[in-house]
């Protein structure tokens, strides 16, 4: 079923534009790849990512994304993937945790900082912390404690102090600006 509704389309190359026939579906970019969703337009992005694309780094958090484990980046904002219907994402670009690292595998500075600070408990909600942390760092290069206090994520493992240190580590490292 995954193959039916998800397909990777080659992006057109500049200077070599060929007219294409009109096709049904919702076009969007996820982690730089072009996808066309032809299934139910009301399907939440979360289930498209997990069931159709098998991009499982974005986790189920709750019916309203309550604990932040399903956050993704849309236009540099952290948004709960279960609250986004596919129809709302036409021509949008989405970044999931799988898309934070560079294509050559170089980690985003915050991913590296999470490893360096060992800011990991069970790890299930870590992708959500990373996404909201990256969104914060894109909004504010030198976030303070008050900014970090506003992160929406919730977790019982108690990684919060290490997550705080990881974000501060990136903020303090000028070479590591995202």
């Amino acid at each position, binding site marked *: 079923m995954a193959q039916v509704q998800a397909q990777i389309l080659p992006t057109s190359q500049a200077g070599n534009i060929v007219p294409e026939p009109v096709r049904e579906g919702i076009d969007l970019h996820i982690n730089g790849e072009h996808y066309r969703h032809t299934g139910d337009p009301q399907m939440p992005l979360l289930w498209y990512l997990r069931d159709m694309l098998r991009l499982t780094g974005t986790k*189920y958090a709750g019916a309203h994304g309550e604990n932040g484990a399903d956050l993704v980046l849309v236009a540099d904002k952290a948004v709960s993937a279960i609250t986004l219907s596919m129809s709302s994402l036409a021509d949008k670009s989405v970044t999931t945790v799988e898309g934070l690292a560079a294509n050559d595998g170089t980690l985003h500075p915050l991913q590296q900082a999470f490893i360096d600070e*060992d800011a990991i*408990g069970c790890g299930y909600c870590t992708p959500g912390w990373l996404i909201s942390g990256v969104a914060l760092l894109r909004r504010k290069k030198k976030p303070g404690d008050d900014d970090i206090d506003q*992160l929406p994520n919730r977790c019982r493992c108690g990684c919060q*102090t290490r997550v705080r240190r990881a974000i501060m580590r990136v903020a303090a490292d000028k070479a590591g600006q995202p």
Partner: protein
Amino acid sequence: MSAGKTRDAIRLDRRRFLQVMAGAAGALVVGIRAADAADAPLPPALLGDNFHDLGAYVRIDGDGNVLIGARDPDTGTGVATSLPRIIAEELDADWNRVSVIALGLGVGNDNGQPRWTYGRQVGGTGGSIPAAWRDLRQVGALARWLLMQAAARRLGVSANRLRCDSGTVIAPDGRRVTYGSLAADASQVALPARAPAVKIAASYQLVGFPAGDVDAHDIVTGQARYALDQHLGDALVAVLVHCPWPDGTLARIDTSAALAVKDVVKVVQLKPEPEQPWGSTVIAPAVAVLAKNTWAALQGRTQLKLEWKPGASQDESSTALEQQSLATLGSHAAPTTRVRDDGDFDAASKQAARRFEATYFQPWLAHASAEPMNCLVRLDKDRARLVVPTQAPQKAWAVVQRLTGLAPDQIDIRVPRVGGGYGRRLDHDFVAEAVMLAQAVDVPVRLLWTREQDFSHDYYRSGCVHQLNAIVDRKRRLTGWHQRMASASALAHRGGSEDHLWSSELRADQIPAGLVPNYRSDWYAQQSAQPRGPFRGMPHLSNAFAVESFIDEIAHQMREDPLKTRLRILGEPRQLPLGNGVTLDIGRLRNVLQLVADRIGWKNWLRSVNGLGIACWHVDGAYVAHAIETAMQGEKLTIQRVVCAVDVGRVINPLGLHGQVVGATLDALSTALDPAITFKNGQIQQHSYKDYPLASMAQLPNDVEVITVPGDRTPTGASFLAMPTAAPALANAVFRVSAVRVRRLPLMKELLRML
């Protein structure tokens, strides 16, 4: 599939053998297996090249890569890192060349009975490290011994003149041979008559040194595969609606609209098996919608038309249960169990110079694990394959075996990293549900609980009431202590003896047992249809809050420094036997208490404008204390500083221990501040994190200062060690800063009510 050939075994003790196998492509493989009842011939090894079939702990390949299996489920406790490091230490492996794999359940067939290939496999109960210290060191030591014998032959030097370092054997003249090049020969070396000696601590290069989580890179890149992220064939996705009453029944059902949803395949009813204990069957009557994908299943679920009929529990409420508990404690009825009775409290009470009394109330709690209950199952005629996020795969196996009737070794249970356990995943109701559904549809099934179900159908921590009485003599010595606790046991409906229901609720050896000449503790059973089960830190969690708050109250009323009161109650450093083989090391307990006091600046406790609070506790041979500093601005409470000292004996991974201590501290603070489960008309009132709020970053301290007492005693577990003392230290600090004594959790609600 079996690439390895069993060679030989050395007896470790009465029950276990070290087992050595020659793996594929010249690999050396060393494992542990349980002893057969009558030392029967060794069974065929489960060893294979497929990771999931790896039937041993250590595998050294010809290229020098070392694969080490982690037997216990890692729910965020760090055992996937710490257990393999114990083996790698004895092996003198190069940690950079070590890959760790989660072993999954190891089970063989012993005449129809299960034989647990890896021994104990339980995560998140504090037992993993002590168990590993008993047997996993031997695995590494044997592998190292075999490699050295092979090196001795190759180099023409006797083995006792060789040394090992980071995956290399080194001769006195400086010649070096790598483990990889020795692996094939080592697998042919005759075994020693006895298990080789383990290393002395002075030569440790991994144990006692910090290591980050082995799964960290996979986790931060989104590549880590939890059970929900794995696939077995094209499984149907099953989502459920549970009856709001655990003892209710389905009165009417109309599935037509649900079945009309595109990609919905089937609707199936599930019923608890009444004769089965809690945790091994369906938790409440349920209706499942099975569909080709999650979105279709969830949509089908909203189209179900169901009418539930309540059971006898429809009159239950958590408020009424608490009043019932209070009435029971006030009635002077005989306790269900007199847990401990030293001296004569009644006689001592008549001689008392002063008496103290207080009652503490703590709410029902949910586990609120990040990854919801789920299970992936594929049933074939002669095999069951499951991916289960469990803390106890052997218990999951028992559920699958009972429902399928398969032979022990026909059940394959994989256990990937688990998204939080906290005791919830010691129960396997969701495994029973998934197996029943797979049986009903005859294709693989992925069961997914929604967040709402996780909150409203849990094996909760029971609410509890503690009534404490204490007496002091004219010299202010604590001469009597009477603790009375009323709660609904987590061991009820689990097939155990009625005499032991108390043991999930309190401990016979908890503070101040053994420190007071007349000490009595009584437990009063309360009844509820709401399921209960193991919960992180229980029974220490609720008892430490009551006891360590009460000691502060006694100190306050006697106009004493609560640190001095505690030290006086503890007395001089000594070994204090508490019965049942438990010995309390008063020196170690005093030490952690003094350490946090010194670090937080306790000498200013009375003059500080902020509130300082302190608490200490002991858990199965480990010692913990918290000191907390709080500030209040109007109604805003700020936790400014938190210091925690722990003494766990030898530390395996200091970075991992730090993470567990910080994590348990923050979890305990979060649990104390706001959340509570309540029920009314027999129905749970909380359905999401919004109703059951875990603490935000802003509510939690920016840092937790951890002091680890160095030690060389046998290591103890630490996954919940720092839970019990955080809440009482907080409440004691809140009293100092606000003059409000919080005797009821959740703390914020009570504080705001009393201000």
